[in-house]
């Protein structure tokens, strides 16, 4: 599990298309700072892009909180996406490759889970959704 945080969390509101781009840039800068490999940076930023878009489109907007974390000798990046949208009623369905309630590709949740080392999803219908992901240096 992700334990002691090695840096201050940085928050990025997600209220527009451009904010999704800003989330990518913020996540990349922290991933570079903790020295993730180029491939791991790319995987994490891609996952963050998917989840930030979901926060915007389905969650009605929200925030991303990006933190440099440390666990023994390993450094990493943790990102928390939070919204107060409708929540996800059928999580199994939502996590299925190819399933979308909108017009998407249905790969955002299932695909981003494959791209990160930790993936934790907390949702309540009518209350909102909170997704925490982390990626660690090797």
């Amino acid at each position, binding site marked *: 599990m992700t334990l002691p945080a090695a840096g201050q969390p940085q928050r990025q509101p997600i209220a527009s298309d451009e904010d999704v*781009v800003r989330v990518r840039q913020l996540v990349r800068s922290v991933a570079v700072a903790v020295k993730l490999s180029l491939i791991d940076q790319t995987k994490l930023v891609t996952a963050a892009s998917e989840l930030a*878009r979901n926060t915007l489109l389905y969650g009605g907007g929200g925030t991303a909180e990006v933190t440099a974390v440390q666990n023994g000798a390993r450094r990493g990046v943790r990102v928390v996406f939070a919204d107060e949208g409708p929540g996800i009623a059928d999580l199994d369905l939502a996590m299925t490759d190819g399933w979308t309630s909108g017009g998407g*590709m249905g790969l*955002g949740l299932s695909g981003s889970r494959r791209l990160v080392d930790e993936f934790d999803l907390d949702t309540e219908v009518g209350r909102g959704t909170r997704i925490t992901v982390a990626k660690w240096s090797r």
Partner: protein
Amino acid sequence: MDAIPILKLDDVLLLSIQVDLSDQTAIAMQDALAERITATGARGVVIDITALEIVDSFIGRILATTASVSRLLDADTVVVGMRPAVAITLVELGLSLGEVRTALNLEKGLALLRRAWAAGAEDSRSIAPTLHAPESR
């Protein structure tokens, strides 16, 4: 919203994506490209993504649908300059770019188009893309 310049090299349109692509910019690119194909009668499109640090499922779909739209307008599309980390991530994400053709760089992309056109005088659908629509609710 930054526009993406579209250059014309003989009968090929060249888009070089330089910005960190927002969804709206990607859609605007697709729309502008379709208009330019019709306006110029271009037979080919090369999309250079050398500068793109990530391709997520939205941008990947735009690349795939752009190829399908171009095909309907009688132009073939090649995506060039995909970074290795992007290719690895796309596969792990689970995204297929459908039948989008790729080449290492601009020169190879142009060569691919010319070869397809030369060989395919009798069958110019040789590099035709098809779009597989996702399953949905």
